[in-house]
């Protein structure tokens, strides 16, 4: 799996290999925690800041900045939440982290909590990952027994009480305010921002919420230094990204990839390229919330700056390949159905917009749509993207918009009035 370097990378996940607490410690595990506790939160935070770690859940917010915002609060009761509600279709990286290297995750959570000044925490794991829940529960108990969690960790005086909370089947609970609602025992409906969770999150207290992969990055940075971390990746995007590769490639799986490799390189070197005799038609990057891009754009490097310039959302880092046997519209329909199912239903553009978008896609695939429908779809897409309450609607809108931008011809080709004999209608 580790194709690039002989050196240790950040994760070193091997499928089928579960790293228990002893092995974790043998390989340098929990030395970072000891170091952080000894040097104090400010020094540790500087290391994370120098390393340039950014959130791996999709928003890519600089992690050190987030923790600094928490530290700026006068409120002393603070929470940490590990967002393990991995629901982005095509993504399985967090699942592997939790089942294979749980102690690296726990160590990362503990160090992050120490830096943020949080004394209570939750790991919110989706209900569809019972194996991960079981392993994490057992790991937390074991870490507590060995003094790596709970009261007076490693004799430092710092305590962290960590609980596991289960999700119950709602993709939207991966959104931070909806996640907070769910931990508070309510429906997973998103809340108004501001206030942001760093000011008023769980029970209105300052809360640090980070993705599994983000937190699991922390131990190696503290253990081996920010400059070691920066030896991977690019100046804009240091480190590595866990890529969930699936679809029409030779090798599907989880790959730890340094930032800076192009998507084309990732697909060919890790994925073995397309299946024999087939060509790549489109690649979905970032899961359902991401974009669908044509092969020409695959020469963009996996890097936050480069991708934002070309409009590619890295998001969770899922790469799903479609070859030339696939229908673009079917893929779009599949993603729209997903969003409609997961919408909380609170706001009009998302609920009603996605409902109508689904109907239009169904008509297109049944050959019953007209060109006017495509213009209407574009108009609805703008409203969904620009006026939805939360990121789900905005992402659904963005995803739909990108498919319309790159594949408008496919949409029009499916219209029954696309034949030259039809007079072009005035579009609204």
């Amino acid at each position, binding site marked *: 799996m580790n194709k690039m370097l002989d050196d240790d990378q950040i994760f070193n996940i091997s499928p089928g290999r579960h790293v228990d607490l002893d092995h974790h410690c043998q390989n340098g595990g929990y030395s970072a925690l000891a170091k952080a506790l000894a040097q104090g939160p400010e020094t540790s935070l500087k290391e994370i800041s120098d390393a340039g770690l950014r959130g791996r859940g999709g928003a890519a917010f600089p992690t050190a900045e987030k923790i600094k915002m928490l530290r700026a609060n006068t409120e002393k009761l603070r929470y940490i939440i590990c967002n393990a509600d991995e629901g982005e279709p095509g993504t399985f990286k967090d699942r592997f982290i939790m089942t294979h290297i749980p102690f690296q995750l726990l160590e990362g959570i503990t160090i992050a909590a120490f830096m943020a000044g949080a004394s209570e925490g939750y790991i919110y794991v989706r209900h569809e990952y019972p194996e991960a829940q079981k392993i994490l529960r057992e790991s937390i108990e074991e870490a507590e027994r060995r003094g790596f969690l709970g009261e007076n960790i490693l004799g430092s005086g710092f305590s962290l009480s960590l609980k596991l909370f289960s999700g119950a089947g709602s993709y939207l609970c991966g959104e931070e305010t909806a996640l907070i609602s769910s931990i508070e025992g309510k429906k997973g409906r998103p809340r108004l921002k501001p206030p942001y969770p760093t000011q008023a999150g769980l029970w209105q207290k300052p809360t640090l919420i980070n993705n599994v992969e983000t937190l699991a990055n922390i131990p190696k940075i503290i253990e081996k230094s920010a400059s070691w971390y920066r030896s991977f990746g690019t100046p804009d995007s240091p480190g590595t990204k866990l890529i969930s590769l699936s679809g029409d490639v030779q090798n599907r799986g989880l790959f730890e990839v340094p930032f800076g490799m192009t998507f084309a390189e990732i697909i060919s070197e890790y994925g073995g390229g397309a299946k024999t005799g087939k060509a790549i038609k489109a690649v979905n990057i970032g899961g359902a919330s991401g974009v669908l891009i044509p092969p020409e754009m695959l020469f963009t490097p996996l890097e936050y700056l480069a991708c934002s310039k070309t409009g590619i959302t890295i998001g969770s880092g899922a790469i799903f390949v479609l070859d030339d046997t696939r229908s673009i519209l079917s893929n779009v329909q599949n993603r729209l159905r997903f969003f409609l199912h997961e919408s*909380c239903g609170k706001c009009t553009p998302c609920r009603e917009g996605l409902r*109508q978008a689904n109907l239009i896609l169904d008509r297109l695939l049944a050959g019953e749509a007209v060109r006017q429908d495509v213009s209407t779809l574009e108009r609805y897409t703008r409203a969904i993207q*620009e006026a939805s309450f939360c990121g789900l609607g905005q992402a659904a809108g963005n995803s739909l918009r990108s498919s319309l931008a790159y594949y408008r011809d496919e949409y029009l080709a499916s219209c029954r009035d696309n034949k030259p004999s039809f007079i072009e209608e005035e579009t609204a």
Partner: protein
Amino acid sequence: MQNINITLNGKVTAVAPEITILEAARQQGIDLPTLCHHPDQRVKANCRICVVEVEGVKNLVPSCSTRVTAGMNITTNSPRVRETVRTILELIFADHPQECLTCIRNGNCELRQIAAKFGVRDIQGEKRKHSFSQDFSTPSLVRNPDKCIKCGRCAEACHYIQNVGILYSHNRSTEISISPEYGKQLADVACVLCGQCALVCPVGAIHERDDTDRVWEALADPQKHVVVQVAPAVRVSLAEEFGFPSGEIATGKLVSALRSLGFDRIFDTDFSADLTIMEEGHELLDRIANGGVLPMITSCSPGWIKYMEHYYPELIPHLSTCKSPQQMFGALAKTYYAQTSGLEAKDIIVVSVMPCTAKKFEAERPEMDASGSQDVDIVLTTRELGRMLQHEGIDFRMLPEAEFDSPLGISTGAAAIFGATGGVMEAALRTVYEVVTGKTLTDLNFTTVRGMTGVKEASVDLAGMEVKAGIAHGLANAKKILEMIKAGQSDYTFIEIMCCPGGCIGGGGQPYGTTNEIRARRIEALYQVDENMPLRKSHENPAVQELYQDFLLEPLGELSHRLLHTQYCSRS
């Protein structure tokens, strides 16, 4: 705090910091459209039709929830905003039944008004065929779930203002439904029928049961003698239905209007409010003197009574056994009035006009038949009366002043203030003070019990006997007092509770657009009515005195008990 400068549609303007864009725009004369927003409720930002452009922000922002910052550059009228708002409205319409012609909100539907303003001419979206069944299960409210636009105002009123919580958002995505659980009807859950949900619904998804046809039928029947009684709150609210500003006192015009509809007698619930003070005042003194259950709590608000019966049945003994003025009136109309006017009770139809939806339920309570048949036959809300008058084409402004009929139309200022929170307490104190001390009250104004504060207190010394009064309005506040009583921490003697915020003038049957600001103006108007009346103490009402002399004989007497007192049941 220092004002800040923002740019609104190209014009630089100074505004207070921390206000919302919506407020800032309104101050500048720009009325942005809203549906889920309500000035008395928390910001929801669901409907998204208030979105505007802010420079530097990628997507549009909701003006109801976004606060202004110094230097913010806002555009409300760009093509982008216009297209987005029109599209969102189109999306709402595609999901809404196209039955505007026959809908009860035709004429005052907020959605329709916005549609007209925004010129939505074409609905591209596929229209949804709904299959929710209507809910006619209660005498007070009707639900049409198909028409719900998911704004959430009703759930907010039910949960946070009334703290009852039977309307909740269930399921998700397009399956979302704001309703009782398990698809139950209102009669199957602990709904108190206060109608605060109906009062805030922007469309016809939940509204009062319309009884106007029954009244037309009664008025057209030559065999029937139709009398009408009007609640105190109605005289300071009805004019709003005809474009008058809130707080307009229109008692005289109201009587004229009812006369022109064809009622045989125009009587006043204020009369029986005075009577209620007599009965309830003596009941209070009796409990104090003879170790009865204290604190005693008023019982004229049927939404409040139903709330007690559902949620605090163990505290029922605290309730006064007095009926509400509406029900006392009905019982007397078909006995005392029938006798003194030589009519047969069976030929009398009693109609009441109330600010309240729960009164429809109260009239149909099985025990409200002391006269031998249903004491109050039909209850109309203020809104329904407004509709009847519009149907008749009556120009409210041109109506002459007129007087209520005798004897059941004679009242005092103490009765008028029944419609305001604290009014029943004040009326009771005016009478009880004089009965106990034997002295004449010089200052009739117990101002400490007035106003919109949720829970109020007052202490009155009655010749050495201290009466500690507690007043609450809105059920969330009522709950606070009840929990105190339950915990044994209440030292009140007498408590007035009104189900609706502001008291009856804020009732579920009042004109649409009721806000706390408007409630305050209606309250002020009632105290004005009181001040302008020649008699301001219930026991000085000559018609009430005559009633006791000739008929009832004494407060809490045998006939009073049979006609004017009632009992309650546990519904938990």
